[in-house]
């Protein structure tokens, strides 16, 4: 029965809460950001208008500068709890160089293998990259929002015009991650359900009865 016990463990409640708040805040930032981008596009002529949030530029800016508080507040709580709980260290900073190559090969062969409470090196690196990208997105966002008050940030990203493009690259990377993340979650429903707080309906048959 120990097998069943292990697989019915849910992520801690705080992980589930900050995850779904982040989903709401991030998607709002992403879709309103597309509408803002459409007011003065540079690399791509237009982001999909069907998905853009806000109706037009003024509405999009209202959403963007409202959701930013949720994204940053929730993100700060999440990072603090990741550190205090030891989750950051045990789950994400525990990449072992010795087994790195083997783990990468294993991931390529079976990308969906993902036991509860365990991460392979590829997953650890991906989640760390996402944390860094989110931080970069917040900092470049602040540099664009306040290029005088936070000119240290704006200058760090190469000036106002360059900061806009850094913000775009961060958005694109995070958007691609989200796409892959959703596909993998749908292909591994037991993980999606666990993140939703639903204990997977496990087979009562154990290895003994097989």
């Amino acid at each position, binding site marked *: 029965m120990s097998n069943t016990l292990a697989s019915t463990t849910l992520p801690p409640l705080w992980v589930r809460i900050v995850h779904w708040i982040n989903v709401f805040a991030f998607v709002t930032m992403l879709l309103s950001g597309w509408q803002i981008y459409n007011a003065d596009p540079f690399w791509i002529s237009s982001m999909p208008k069907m998905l853009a949030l*806000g109706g037009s530029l003024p509405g*999009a800016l209202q959403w963007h500068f*409202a959701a930013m508080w949720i994204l940053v507040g929730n993100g700060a709580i999440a990072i603090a709890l990741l550190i205090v709980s030891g989750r950051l260290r045990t789950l994400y900073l525990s990449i072992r160089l010795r087994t790195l190559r083997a783990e990468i090969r294993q991931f390529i062969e079976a990308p969906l293998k993902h036991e509860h409470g365990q991460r392979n090196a590829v997953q650890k690196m991906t989640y760390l990259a996402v944390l860094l990208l989110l931080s970069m997105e917040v900092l470049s966002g602040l540099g664009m929002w306040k290029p005088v*008050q936070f*000119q240290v940030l704006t200058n760090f990203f190469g000036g106002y015009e360059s900061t806009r493009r850094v913000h775009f690259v961060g958005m694109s990377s995070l958007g691609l991650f989200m796409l892959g993340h959703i596909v993998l979650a749908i292909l591994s429903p037991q993980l999606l359900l666990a993140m939703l707080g639903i204990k997977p309906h496990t087979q009562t048959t154990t290895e003994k009865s097989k």
Partner: protein
Amino acid sequence: MTPHKDDEQLQAWLQLQRELQSPATTLDRRKLLRLALVSAATILLPGCEITERDNVQSVLRQISHFNDGAQATLLDPGRRATEYAPSQVTTPFRFNAFYSEASVPEIDGNTWRLQVAGRVARPRDWALTEIKALTPMTECTRLICIEGWSAVGQWTGVPLHHFLQLNGADIRSKYVAFRCADGYYTSIDMASALHPQTMLAFGFSGADSLPDEFGFPLRLRIPIKLGFKNPKHLVALTVTNDFTSGYWEDLHGYNWFAGL
């Protein structure tokens, strides 16, 4: 919202509810995929119209008002916007207004006057020659539009803090409000009005007068705020404690403080 779309949304909600209430939440991939699609449809159906709903707009405007306060707190009166060399200006400089370039007002500089009113010791009308006779400053700064684009320009004018002082303005007042010849209006907080880089500009790109399309004969140039807080073709300046907002703020709900 059209009634047709309302129906679709209601159906999507009911479907989502049924899916969530189904007794066996088994690891059925097909069911999960359907659940995901139905959820996505529920979120996306309201689409762009959600922003215009009265209750949503009310909440968003309250947060925008909160952001006015947050930005006033963030404002460091001593922090200056980056200055550029004259060789770094953007040419041609970009035109922007709520009308096309053909509709730019043509103003006679000889009869034009700037009315100074409100909480000032000496309310009066200023002629252009009188303003140009004051000690000017020249600066190359970046104008950042709310749309995202930016352009570096060179402006010459009289520092607003000096001009307010000349008129005996009560600088404990909350706002400085501006009215323009083209019907545009806006207002700024006193701290930003007193910022050393804020000026009433009458010259552009080395010339001692403004081109029509960039605000002849006088405009506000405030590099610590977004472009739409830089009103052109000024006709009145009022020092006041009454909040009078601005053209785009009233029309579309742009954030009033709009600080950089």
